């Protein structure tokens, strides 16, 4: 009986130790870092469009051209290209994190986690999607 208790205690300890290891998500891979760099560089150009309201953060972890009128006609093409490139990177980022952790099926949950965090951390004045409609922070 005593050995059984010892055995169970050690199993419990082992389970706890394994849990502690499992709680971190790997995001420090060459793939993730490359996408991050690219997004960081693009943000310098996008920031002004977030602030003007031309571009907003969507509920699905992407960005979208919200108010084309806020962009001079001559720049509209460039902004569209920025938005498309950013969304490509974001899709790749979510997929890369899921793959890096050996769970490609987590991609949708990673996307929705990011969507919430992007929106929650958006700066005052930026536009974010909230239940289908746009809202200014």
């Amino acid at each position, binding site marked *: 009986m005593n050995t059984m208790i010892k055995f169970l205690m050690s199993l419990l300890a082992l389970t706890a130790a394994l849990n502690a290891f499992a*709680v971190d*998500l790997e995001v420090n891979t060459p793939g993730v870092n490359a996408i*991050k760099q690219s997004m960081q560089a693009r*943000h310098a150009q996008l920031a002004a469009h977030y602030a003007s309201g031309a571009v907003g953060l969507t509920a699905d972890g992407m960005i979208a051209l919200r108010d084309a009128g806020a962009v001079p006609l001559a720049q509209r093409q460039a902004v569209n290209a920025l938005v498309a490139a950013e969304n490509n990177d974001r899709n790749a980022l979510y997929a890369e994190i899921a793959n890096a952790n050996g769970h490609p099926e987590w991609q949708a*949950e990673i996307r929705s986690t990011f969507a919430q965090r992007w929106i929650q951390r958006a700066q005052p004045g930026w536009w974010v999607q909230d239940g289908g409609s746009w809202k200014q922070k």
Partner: protein
Amino acid sequence: MKRVWIPVTFAAFALSACVTINIYFPAAAAEKAADKIIDEVWQTQQADKPAEPAVKEKK
């Protein structure tokens, strides 16, 4: 003979718990990871503290 099965059953439960942890999405860890990446992309926090670890080395 019956005694053998009790620890075996518990072991099976404990092992299945380990597997479960890895199958379910770690929501808290994902939030932490997302915040870290968002900070870097938006350069929101000047939390780029690892930039100068050598200075603290001595004195």
